[in-house]
């Protein structure tokens, strides 16, 4: 029950549901840190990945989320961004294109891993501004997908991923050291 298994497997096709997840307490948290450190090591080596073609453009709801973050997030989260977050919470997928009501567009794909990096960055940015832990939740889930599919990630994303994972770990450690129940 203490092994961190959520960052492995084919998560694009068989996403984690996280229902009734492992309960290992501190031992589980240690296992999570070890798992993330091994991903960091992988991306720091720069001996991986595919160069790929052009970067996949971010879908509109994600662009709205980014713009909202850049404005300092003073207004409520844009509706499309909030729906994207909900859609991701249910499917654990980020699609290359969405309809106006934020459903996957016809022929849209969910295997563009740079969009998961983008989502994790957005979530961390909002977390920093709001301290709302729901955004750390999004980041953890997006990074699980990136970790599981690390060998398919384009080499040019390495620095961004290293930063995302470092920030994610820092936030988790901060919570661990400061939260009181």
């Amino acid at each position, binding site marked *: 029950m203490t092994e961190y298994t959520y960052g492995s497997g084919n998560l694009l096709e068989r996403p984690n549901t*996280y229902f009734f997840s*492992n309960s*290992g307490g*501190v031992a589980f*948290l240690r296992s999570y840190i070890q798992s993330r450190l091994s991903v960091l090591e992988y991306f720091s080596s720069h001996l991986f990945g595919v160069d790929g073609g052009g970067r996949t453009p971010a879908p509109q709801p994600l662009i709205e989320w980014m713009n909202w973050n850049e404005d300092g997030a003073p207004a409520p989260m844009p509706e499309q961004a909030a729906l994207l977050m*909900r859609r991701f919470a249910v499917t654990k997928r980020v699609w290359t294109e969405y309809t106006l009501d934020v459903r996957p567009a016809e022929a849209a794909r969910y295997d563009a891993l740079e969009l998961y990096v983008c989502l994790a960055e957005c979530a961390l940015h909002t977390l920093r501004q709001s301290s709302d832990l*729901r955004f*750390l939740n999004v980041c953890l889930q997006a990074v699980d997908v990136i970790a599981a599919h690390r060998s398919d990630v384009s080499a040019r994303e390495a620095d961004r991923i290293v930063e995302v994972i470092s920030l994610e770990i820092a936030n988790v450690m901060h919570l661990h050291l400061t*939260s*009181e129940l």
Partner: protein
Amino acid sequence: MKVVLLSSCSLRSLAYSVVLNRHTDHEISIVEYGDAHLPEKSFAEPENESWDPLPMWLRRNWRDCYDELCASSERVSVDLELNSEMVARSLSGLQPDLVIYAGAAGNIVGRDLLAIAPVLHMHPGALPAFRGSTTIYWSLLSQQPIVASAIYLSAGIDQGRIVIARNYPVPTSLSDVDGLYDAGIRAWLLDEVLSLGHGLPHSQPQEGEGKDYYVIHPVLKNLVLSRLSPPVRSVQ
């Protein structure tokens, strides 16, 4: 009242059966849906810390209680999903005054079922502050009290009218949070609702801005679990 337990045969269904066996003044029926397999779970002795902090009357073999309820109630089993036409037909055929919802995680009651009778749901979170999933953990992570709210389900998730809401003691490091604690505090609340008196319990709309929570990531969940205090035992 004619009360129907809409049961996925989950642990929650079993916990509710303990309560329904105590309220024999109601005419109880059961509609089971899905594959209707009772959970493979053994129930520890009442003194075991995994029950903390549930009251002694809830510390029983819930499977036996469910069997007891089935033996004394009309029971319909439908081997289909929650929102199937057959479940709706079975439910309406019983002409309930009140439906008590004990569904599986992730199931959402559709409009057709909601139209049959008021559907009572015990949500383990304060409303509207903690709507959605795994709200026991989200409440603890936010350093807020554990609250369970009895609501009538509506089309919006966890947005229905509130019957009552109660605070519950925080689980200990030895509590079975996902299992006994979650199902147990809901059952504890159901007991209070059914003790309110005859007739359909009154309700009021939710007030204030709501927040939606989704299934908590295991890292955040284990941050909570790692901070729970051990049970306090009196020294003899």
